[in-house]
């Protein structure tokens, strides 16, 4: 499809969506719910998308997509409310925003901080959407050349990179989590020869583990346990006046916006790592490239703009591998993948053949979702903030009930609940022991793809492994995998660290530089 017809399709889709009252109502309500969800600490964008998946599975695909994307965008943005007003990030994505937002709120500029956040988030989502529409079709074209060898290596790469980058402790723990996810994905009858694996004689396990109950268990139950066990209590949120768009400040920080959006899209497109890392990397980048890094941590608008632009641009970035390769780029994108599977949409290289114009449709919905987020943020922030007064002891048990009912509703099978609970409890203990959960769920999602393609590749090549090194893309992926593993070997890690220090020496702070000049 050429560029002009793509534009035409985009605007036609946008017009069709905007002129439908049902779509507008779903858009605004879901966006508002997403903002409230993100604003409540303990509730995440992933959980919001998961719960909405169960509520929207009976809706037409277009309406469900509108609801889910509006929830996703709203929740990522909504996490900034408690970050700014109470110094407790509502979602991990807004952790960096608290560094600058709360000091701004403390000196009476809470409205200004929220205005900056709202506009920066809108710009971030819009730029992410732009990259989605530009890059996804190109990646789809490339991915159509992939055979079983490349697909298998891509799945392994996705699990490894997710384990490497999301692990807060040893990287080995991230890899173990990924392999556990792969192990869980092997439960059931295999897709090629229909041989039962690890079904322990239970016919309910013949079709394997249902993805959405596993995801709800892995994400919802640990959150519920953690928030209630740790007895999280919020302070009184800072009050604020009317929120203004703060366009002038945004324009002054345009370079931070653009850089942060690029960081967000880049990080979002890496499987499994999400908005939180994008926020921190972008914040760190803004601080290290600032002429006055000593102002950071004291209410520097550039820091707030950077983190919020990046975490929202990450949404578009995460959708790029999701739609083009079927590999989710972030935990909420994992849930979106589950939702799309329920609606019978198989994302990946064949998406434009199965559903022509699907990527354009998602892009149009993403733009509308960001607009709805901006409108809700500007007009209703003062009311949404009231949800911060709801104690976790009230809303967390309700979330538990919705998770249980939602998991049941998807297959009308109580067995899904029997699966969800032990997986959730195991996920809780894994996170307590500092194992990341994202690689585990990426392993569950990509496991069937990796398994089927490896075995097909072996059948086609009669057990010969040489195509893995003779095919160019497969070789590149194999080298990337080897490099990821090798980079964790201590001598190699020390060598990389030394090289990094030589290439990018630390910039002296202004005060230190001044001391040197004075000295």
């Amino acid at each position: 499809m050429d560029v002009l017809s793509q534009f035409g399709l985009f605007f036609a889709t946008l017009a069709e969506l905007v002129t439908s009252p049902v779509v507008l109502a779903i858009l605004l309500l879901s966006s508002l719910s997403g903002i409230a969800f993100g604003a409540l600490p303990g509730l995440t964008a992933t959980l919001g998308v998961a719960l909405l998946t169960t509520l929207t599975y009976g809706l037409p695909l277009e309406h469900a997509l509108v609801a889910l994307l509006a929830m996703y965008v709203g929740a990522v943005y909504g996490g900034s409310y408690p970050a700014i007003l109470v110094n407790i990030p509502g979602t991990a994505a807004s952790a960096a925003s608290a560094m600058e937002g709360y000091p701004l709120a403390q000196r009476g500029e809470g409205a200004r901080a929220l205005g900056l956040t709202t506009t920066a988030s809108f710009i971030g989502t819009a730029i992410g959407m732009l990259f989605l529409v530009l890059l996804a079709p190109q990646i789809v074209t490339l991915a159509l050349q992939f055979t079983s060898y490349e697909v298998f290596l891509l799945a392994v790469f996705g699990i490894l990179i997710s384990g490497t980058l999301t692990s807060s402790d040893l990287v080995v723990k991230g890899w173990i989590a990924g392999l556990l996810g792969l192990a869980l994905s092997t439960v059931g009858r295999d897709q090629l020869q229909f041989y039962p694996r690890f079904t322990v004689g239970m016919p309910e396990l013949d079709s394997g583990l249902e993805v959405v109950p596993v995801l709800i268990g892995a994400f919802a139950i640990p959150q519920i346990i953690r928030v209630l066990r740790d007895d999280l209590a919020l302070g009184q949120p800072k009050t604020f006046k009317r929120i203004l768009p703060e366009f002038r400040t945004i324009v002054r920080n345009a370079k931070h916006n653009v850089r942060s959006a690029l960081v967000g899209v880049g990080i979002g497109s890496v499987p499994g790592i999400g908005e939180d890392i994008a926020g921190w990397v972008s914040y760190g980048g803004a601080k290290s490239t600032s002429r006055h890094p000593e102002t950071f941590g004291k209410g520097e608008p550039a820091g707030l703009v950077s983190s919020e632009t990046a975490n929202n641009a990450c949404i578009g970035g995460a959708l790029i591998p999701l739609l083009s390769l079927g590999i989710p780029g972030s935990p909420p994108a994992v849930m979106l993948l589950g939702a799309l599977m329920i609606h019978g949409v198989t994302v990946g290289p064949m998406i434009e053949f199965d559903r022509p114009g699907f990527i354009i449709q998602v892009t149009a919905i993403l733009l509308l979702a960001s607009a709805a987020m901006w409108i809700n943020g500007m007009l209703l922030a003062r009311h949404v903030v009231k949800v911060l007064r709801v104690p976790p002891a009230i809303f967390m048990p309700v979330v538990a009930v919705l998770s249980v009912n939602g998991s049941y509703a998807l297959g009308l099978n109580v067995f899904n609940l029997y699966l969800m609970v032990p997986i959730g409890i195991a996920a809780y203990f894994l996170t307590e022991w500092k194992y990341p959960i994202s690689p585990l769920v990426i392993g569950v999602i990509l496991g069937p793809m990796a398994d089927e393609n490896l075995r097909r590749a072996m059948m086609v090549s009669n057990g010969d492994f040489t195509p893995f090194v003779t095919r160019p893309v497969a070789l590149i992926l194999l080298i990337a995998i080897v490099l990821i593993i090798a980079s964790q070997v201590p001598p190699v890690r020390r060598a990389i660290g030394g090289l990094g220090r030589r290439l990018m020496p630390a910039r002296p702070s202004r005060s230190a530089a001044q001391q040197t000049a004075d000295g």
Partner: protein
Amino acid sequence: MLVGLGILALSGLLVRHAARTLGRDGVREALRPHATLVSARNLRLYLILGSIIAYVYVFVPHVDFALATAFFLAVFVFAFHLDREASVTRNLVLMAGLAVVVGAVLALVEAPARGPAVDLLTVAGIIAVAAVNARALVRQGLALKPWWTGLAVALLTPAVVCPVFRYGLLVPLPHEGLVIGSLDALRYALFR
């Protein structure tokens, strides 16, 4: 096999790392049972885990979903929203108690009478949880406002969620008994 070997190999690396970092004494110390197993924080963990397990494995498959949810919410909200430490133990005992009784009834009572029996037991359980927690608050001279909030959440949530799923999304609930059966009868009577 590949996945299993990978997990074993990486686990071996972890053990090696732990042994190098902590030394033999450190590993022995880490493996020793700790007295903190009965701390306040762990007591909350036991309540949460116990409640979720009882709710999903005992109540949801066999008790009217609305009643099971109301009981679960009552226990949870009263445990964490009231006077905190004492209420956690109190509600843990109530949850465990009803779960055991319901389990016993399910095992001992024959099929047609089983459903109404466990539903009525759960109603009694909700009333008991509310009464015990109210009495505890009154005895300590504390305000009843959190109690009223908890009770409202426990009763209103299933009152909203069940009709939305049952009649809005047309999703049958896991077990439909006393309350949902009555709602069905009312619906047919009103909209026949």
